[in-house]
């Protein structure tokens, strides 16, 4: 019996005895409620929350067992083989069967993903190294002093252990591992550091493993936008984790601070000495609007009320659905910067050098009175 037939049969049975109609109608409504509830449960179960929880698709899309030119983990070209498949092309997300692969380099207009686009620093495309991270395989290593992450300090506490004691002069930035961003940074080999993450059920992002960390940034929490913020809206975006207590290592800004140590006020990292306290020495991060000098009430930050994709904020428990910005919203590194690369200097989300005051955006998204 189909679902429709079942409903008709129930109705006929209920109309059979008029004398019991009142009771029957009550039962009918109860039955309907239970039925609807069951249907809802079934619907939820049939579309589990981890629908995109792990890589789906043919093994052959990403792996080659005995490639003529082999790459680690039997991948077709390593990280970039999958995530930079067509740098000159115009697809920011490449779909092969059921496999959806975000592209970190592409040439699509208005298609830059949340992390930005290495296109701006790629040696293949008239690069400007000030606009992004110089990752091995994409760009050459920068000249000193930018051959070492600005603000770097050795032996800082990172998820899983301790960061490197120093940054070797010839050591270029990698996608993952000790000298990169993704994966377990206590493991030097990039591929080993991220091993298995793509095949992990990451429906829960709790930072417990690389696979269950935000964008495989080990230890970091957050909510991942399913299209990597392509066509994101103010109420459907990445949910960035922030924390103003400086007692955790799970914020997106802490991840940045693992290398750019002196830019983060967490005592594990640069701390007050480097960032300041009563007077800021550097722009603070992982700080809520409620903690601004002089207090939130009456401050210029009160005017930032609707989530801005240009200057996003973090939340203590992000859902990716926040559209309201208030005193508890948290400034983070990606409030101003892109992780990979942007069209602007210093990987900023906007042009710091030009006409910002006229436009009223960029820094003025938060510093709303500075443009007046």
């Amino acid at each position, binding site marked *: 019996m189909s679902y429709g037939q079942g409903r008709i049969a129930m109705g006929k049975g209920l109309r059979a005895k008029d004398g019991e109609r009142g009771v029957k109608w009550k039962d009918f409504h109860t039955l309907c409620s239970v039925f609807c509830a069951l249907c809802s449960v079934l619907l939820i179960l049939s579309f589990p929350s981890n629908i995109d929880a792990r*890589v*789906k*698709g043919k*093994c*052959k899309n990403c792996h080659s*067992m005995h490639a003529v030119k*082999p790459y680690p983990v039997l991948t077709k070209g390593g990280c970039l083989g999958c995530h930079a498949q067509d740098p000159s092309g115009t697809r920011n997300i490449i779909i092969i069967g059921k496999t959806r692969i975000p592209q970190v380099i592409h040439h699509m207009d208005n298609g830059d993903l949340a992390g930005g686009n290495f296109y701006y620093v790629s040696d293949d495309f008239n690069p400007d190294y000030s606009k992004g991270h110089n990752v091995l395989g994409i760009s050459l290593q920068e000249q000193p002093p930018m051959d070492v992450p600005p603000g770097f300090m050795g032996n800082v506490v990172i998820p899983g252990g301790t960061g490197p004691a120093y940054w070797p002069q010839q050591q270029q930035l990698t996608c993952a591992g000790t000298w990169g961003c993704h994966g377990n940074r206590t493991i030097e080999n990039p591929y080993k550091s991220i091993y298995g993450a793509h*095949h992990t*059920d990451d429906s829960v992002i709790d930072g417990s493993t690389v696979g269950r960390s935000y964008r495989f940034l080990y230890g970091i929490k957050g909510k991942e936008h399913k299209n990597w913020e392509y066509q994101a809206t103010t109420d459907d975006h990445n949910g960035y984790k922030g924390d103003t207590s400086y007692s955790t290592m799970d914020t997106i800004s802490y991840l940045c601070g693992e290398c750019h140590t002196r830019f983060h006020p967490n005592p594990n990292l640069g701390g007050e000495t480097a960032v300041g306290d009563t007077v800021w020495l550097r722009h603070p991060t992982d700080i809520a609007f409620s903690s601004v000098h002089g207090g939130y009430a009456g401050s210029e930050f009160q005017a930032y009320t609707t989530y801005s994709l240009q200057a996003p904020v973090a939340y203590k428990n992000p859902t990716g659905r926040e559209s309201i910005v208030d005193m508890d919203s948290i400034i983070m590194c990606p409030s101003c910067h892109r992780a990979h690369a942007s069209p602007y200097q210093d990987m900023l989300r906007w042009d710091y050098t030009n006409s910002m005051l006229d436009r009223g955006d960029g820094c003025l998204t938060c510093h709303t009175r500075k443009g007046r």
Partner: protein
Amino acid sequence: MVVGDCDVCHSLYPGMMKAAAPGKPLRYVLQNSMCVSCHSNADSNTIKMLGGARVPVVYSRVKPDRPLSGGNFYYVKVFGDRRGHNVDGIASPDAKNGFMPPGYDRSSDPSTIGFNDKKPLACAGSNGCHGDRNIENPFAAILGAHHSNDFPVDGSTTARSYRFLKRTAKVKGVTGLEDKDWGYSASSKKHNEYTPSINRFCADCHSGLYRRDKIGRASPWFRHPTGIVLPKRGEYLKYNPDVPPPPDKPDVRIYSLDAPVARPEVPAVSSDEVRPGTDIVMCLSCHVAHGSPNEFMLRWDYDSIVAGEEGSGGCLICHTGKGE
């Protein structure tokens, strides 16, 4: 050892035996096709009777009902290069690789002659798999093996090498336990048993797919490793998840004919038990030797193996965590 009437093999085909010229030793003609002639079949049966002898069929001229353990050259003949070894007398040379085996490295080939990339792959001899690869002539390379005592299968002679895979006269041949039906009626309990020697054998011609300097020395591998122990950790602990072990043997997994493993030593009898941490991944875990319906002579259709969709089979027999 072959038993039965001489005629059924030795004068079955016209021209096979020819009178020797005066003063010359008796020689067989049609040497390049003689192996194929005996071990092929016009119908779909893959074990045929020649007199009283049971002959395993490696090349069926019609679709084989039940390909033997080594597969069947029918597939490379009918469906092309990617489905099998292009053996002379069966299939034309590989359009992509020519005569050269992928991954061949002369320095890794124990044959004193080496593989001649100007000549086609043969059943036996220096350009083939079976027999003594220090001998160029396929026929001579395997001469006498069918009529020799083939027990124990210790690799000491061609006859005493697993399926006559001797490698060379001075190099120990392949060892293993030969299923008496060549896998025709194989099950998880009854099957060939392989040892890591089969990997070294394959590597004589495909060393680039075996040597640690070519594939990596540990995870993360650059090419799929072979000759490594099935890890006793993680997803490998659930090898062949579709067939759970008996409750009283929770540490044992059940042998899969779709992804067989090798044993550290040749067992006396075949077993349906697989032990992660002991048993060994081998070339034949994924591939068959002769030909298969699938690309790259795989035991399954690689194109149909998908991750993350609760699939099973194929790669996912070992990589159980990828299917979930």
